């Protein structure tokens, strides 16, 4: 029996398990997937929890319900990956060997990386919404908050779903308007980037949105320290911004097991070929999703497009050929903009987000870089698509490779 081992049963690991189980003969291949716990979170749903739109029950499901039959599911943390021995040591003491390894361990927020972020005020006046616990605690706080200065701060890039903090700002504007206290709330968006977003056209447009919604933008601000007593964030070059309520997006990092294995970069991301998704660690190790060091967005849609490419390349390598499929950095993100409207952006390594219609050129139903109700429905529909199509590795009406059809420069 040949062995494929998948580390991480999140978005990317689950898609790969489903694709491979459907393609490889069961009497020749043993597929094993490892995760530290039993529950799969629909992470895009974290965004809606603080505002009471979703509850935790809406976005948490048993992992096994989404994994294919006939594969081995192992619940354990990872101790270390040993590429030279083609094996992985688990925290439950087991040792798993493999012919091919797929690393899909994702990224997670690490607030301890910033001085003063954790501590007495954590989940009192300082909250994150990149974890379920954080989002749920914030929901309880916002319910009774009477107003003041709300500061949304990205500590450091890259983060997963780089538009989520902007969406949070837009939804906060909507939420406080609905609550009738918007006039008592000052919202400021503080980012280390030179503008609202990374790509120039989208950044200008989203910057306008912030303006129109009366959300202040502080750009080029790299936070070095949080002063909990003084309720202010302080940048490395000593600028200060005060808050009553701080929403932080902490440094996002890859898993500690990657660091223990000795091949992660300074954020524990795995060095990966940006086209083939083969690791630079060893020939029989591949990487997918947020765990890679690719210069692409860390998003579920990206993991989905990558899965198409990785699947083809694995089949090539299994047949003794060189991997031929090439990932182009394709990302496709709905951006919730509040008041039941949304935007949509579609881009890759080379082409920034452009206006147009999507996915059918000229028809839509979605509009790129434009605020519409339909885009909002797309975002809300994404939860159903995620559980029922995306995780199962089903074909979506969007190709892995980005297309210019329907777009205007």
């Amino acid at each position: 029996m040949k062995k494929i081992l998948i580390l991480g049963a999140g978005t990317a690991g689950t898609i790969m398990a489903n694709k491979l189980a459907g393609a490889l003969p069961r009497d020749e291949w043993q597929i094993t997937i490892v995760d530290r716990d039993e529950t799969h979170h629909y992470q895009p749903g974290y965004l809606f929890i603080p505002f009471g739109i979703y509850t935790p029950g809406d976005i948490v499901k048993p992992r096994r319900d989404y994994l294919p039959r006939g594969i081995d599911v192992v619940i354990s943390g990872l101790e270390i990956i040993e590429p030279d021995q083609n094996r992985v040591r688990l925290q439950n003491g087991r040792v798993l060997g493999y012919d091919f390894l797929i690393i899909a361990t994702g990224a997670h927020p690490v607030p301890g990386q910033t001085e003063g972020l954790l501590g007495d005020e954590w989940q009192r006046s300082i909250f994150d919404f990149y974890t379920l616990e954080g989002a749920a605690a914030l929901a309880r706080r916002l319910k009774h908050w009477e107003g003041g200065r709300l500061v949304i701060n990205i500590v450091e890039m890259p983060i997963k779903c780089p538009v989520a903090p902007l969406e949070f700002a837009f939804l906060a504007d909507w939420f406080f308007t609905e609550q009738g206290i918007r006039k008592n709330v000052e919202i400021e968006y503080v980012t280390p980037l030179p503008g609202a977003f990374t790509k120039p056209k989208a950044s200008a447009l989203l910057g306008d949105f912030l303006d129109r919604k009366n959300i202040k933008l502080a750009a080029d601000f790299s936070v070095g320290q949080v002063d909990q007593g003084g309720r202010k964030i302080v940048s490395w070059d000593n600028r200060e911004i005060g808050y009553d309520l701080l929403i932080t997006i902490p440094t996002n990092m890859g898993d500690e097991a990657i660091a223990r294995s000795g091949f992660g970069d300074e954020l524990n991301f795995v060095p990966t070929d940006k086209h083939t998704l083969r690791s630079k660690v060893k020939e029989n190790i591949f990487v997918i999703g947020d765990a890679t060091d690719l210069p692409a967005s860390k998003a579920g849609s990206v993991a989905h497009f990558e899965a198409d490419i990785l699947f083809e390349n694995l089949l090539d390598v299994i047949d003794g050929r060189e991997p031929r499929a090439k990932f182009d950095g394709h990302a496709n993100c709905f951006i919730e903009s509040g008041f039941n409207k949304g935007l949509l952006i579609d881009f890759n390594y080379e082409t920034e987000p452009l206006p147009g219609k999507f996915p059918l050129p000229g028809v839509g139903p979605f509009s790129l870089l434009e605020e519409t109700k339909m885009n909002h429905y797309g975002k809300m529909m994404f939860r159903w698509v995620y559980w029922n199509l995306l995780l199962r590795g089903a074909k979506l009406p969007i190709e892995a490779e980005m297309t210019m059809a329907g777009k205007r420069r």
Partner: protein
Amino acid sequence: MAIRTIANKALDFDAEGFMTNFKDWDVEIAKTLAAEEGIATLTDRHLTVLNFMRREFETKGDGPSIRRLTKESGVPTKELYELFPGGPAKKAARIAGIKKPHGCI
């Protein structure tokens, strides 16, 4: 693209003012570029950072992030911001004669 003459050398710069060929660089050029960035004198600490950036660029084809700079060059983040006020990764890259770092997406 623009050709400028600095320290008696004709150098090619991109639209954002970054040198396009890092091999043309020397410390005299760095002094001029530093002055343009508002840094009057280049100290040994500046040069530690600049040389680290150039080594990274040579081996990886891209300048390092601030986090990597701090971790690998031994210069703490706080000091990096003092040495290159207003954005160490970008400013130091320009003075080091390497291309603008791709940074983050």
